[in-house]
């Protein structure tokens, strides 16, 4: 609990620092460089989440533990969320810096492809009715999609760079200014911690839901403490 309060304060400090404590970077127009304190950690979290989802998918396929599938699904949902955030903030930055919302430079392309992968994952999950098969297929797809990522990382920069040389983004240099660097790293840490918190919450929700379903099948009631009868039940449904 304490950590969560600390995280809240920490993120608030980062927000303040991003605007008041640091100086705007020189190469960018106006104050636009400040968005990188938020945009880069978001895309980092989106990619990290994809990795987590893939790893959990592997665990699920190997061991068929339901909780692993919950991790995979939660990570996919959160990854999708942060991917959207990263795309939007990146697009805003692009508009301010280069004048158009979308330029298909390497980083933008990669984040959009990640977005389509997440979208396809959810389309798959919602199209398969049998729950076990749904989990297996989603896990397989997660792994297949992950395998194409190295191609994106190596291929896309080589190809798009030669097509549009003037648009390669260069946000990987916040190390210019020590203040900027500290705030950037602090933001990275804050976003990762926030992600882990949200991930755990989502996993717990999914775990609870599956417990509820299991209890329903075993005839022990829906689990809602308000509406359930308080009569003592026989533990008949549970195998001893």
């Amino acid at each position, binding site marked *: 609990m304490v950590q*969560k309060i600390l995280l809240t304060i920490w993120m608030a400090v980062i927000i303040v620092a991003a605007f008041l404590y640091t100086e705007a970077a020189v190469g960018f127009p106006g104050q636009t460089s400040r968005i990188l304190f938020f945009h880069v950690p978001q895309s980092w979290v989106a990619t990290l989440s994809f990795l987590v989802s893939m790893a959990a998918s592997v665990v699920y396929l190997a061991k068929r533990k339901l909780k692993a599938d919950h991790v995979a699904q939660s990570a996919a949902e959160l990854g999708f969320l942060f991917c959207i955030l990263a795309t939007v903030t990146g697009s805003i930055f692009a508009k301010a810096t280069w004048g158009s919302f979308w330029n298909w430079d390497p980083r933008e392309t990669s984040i959009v492809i990640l977005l389509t992968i997440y979208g396809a994952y959810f389309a798959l999950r919602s199209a398969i009715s049998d729950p076990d098969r749904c989990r297996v297929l989603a896990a397989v797809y997660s792994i297949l999609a992950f395998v194409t990522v190295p191609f994106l990382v190596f291929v896309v920069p080589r190809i798009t760079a030669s097509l549009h040389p003037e648009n390669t983004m260069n946000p990987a240099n916040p190390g210019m200014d020590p203040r900027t660097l500290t705030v950037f790293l602090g933001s990275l840490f804050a976003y990762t911690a926030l992600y882990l918190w949200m991930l755990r919450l989502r996993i717990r929700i999914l775990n*609870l839901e599956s417990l509820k379903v299991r209890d329903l099948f075993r005839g022990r009631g829906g689990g809602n403490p308000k509406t359930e009868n308080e009569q003592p039940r026989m533990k008949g449904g549970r195998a001893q």
Partner: protein
Amino acid sequence: MKEGLTFVMAVNLIIWCGIALYLFILDKRIKALETSMKEKE
């Protein structure tokens, strides 16, 4: 420029406080459900 920055920062802070509040409330509710589930076991 500085006034504009403070405004944007304030908006960000308010949004963040809203998010954090939501997460805390969600956390409490989940904990309540978890303990009630455990009690039934």
